[in-house]
């Protein structure tokens, strides 16, 4: 809740400072995203530290099993996404004359797809039975 409130506050502050044009809105969303991810990571780190101090293991057989499945499916999703980008580059750009894809953006988007898939699957497999 606190992280969400901070994200919204960050978004509003950035929007006020940068303006409401598309650049301002996108940048403000980025600010909110960075605050949200940072807040979530900090909370996870603190919770893990407390659990370790209480004598609980950070990983056990169930979490390792889930991590294995998450890694497997994240790898496949990222692989197919990057293959899709490759085909876009061959067919779309070379043959159909579609706009070229900047390599840096392609790498960043691929990393984001893999990361979001990883986080989403962690949440999903953590909630349902493996």
């Amino acid at each position, binding site marked *: 809740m606190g992280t969400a409130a901070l994200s919204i506050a960050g978004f509003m502050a950035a929007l006020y400072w940068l303006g409401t044009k598309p650049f301002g809105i996108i940048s403000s969303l980025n600010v909110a995203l960075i605050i949200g991810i940072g807040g979530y990571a900090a909370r996870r780190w603190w919770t893990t530290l407390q659990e370790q101090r209480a004598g609980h293991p950070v990983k056990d057989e169930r979490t390792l099993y889930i991590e294995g499945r998450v890694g497997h499916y994240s790898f496949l999703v990222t692989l197919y996404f990057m293959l899709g980008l490759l085909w876009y580059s061959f067919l779309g750009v070379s043959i159909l004359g579609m706009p070229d894809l900047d390599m840096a953006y392609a790498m960043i988007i691929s990393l984001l797809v893999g990361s979001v898939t990883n986080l989403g699957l962690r949440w999903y497999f*953590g909630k349902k039975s493996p």
Partner: protein
Amino acid sequence: MIDMRTRMKELRARYDLTQAELARKVGVRRETIHFVEKGEYNPSLRLALKIARVFEAPVEDIFLFDDEELEAQ
């Protein structure tokens, strides 16, 4: 597929153990005990034996097949 159920909640109450305390005794996270109790996670043999040792009961007295499913088969 035959569903399984456990008597862990009943045994925890008898031994006055919380999920966290049981988790610490057998070396797993509290969430794992929670999911095992709900029947949503099947523990490994090692974990099942550790739990049985804590409750001083045979494994088959703690983890049970759903009898209705078994009879239907």
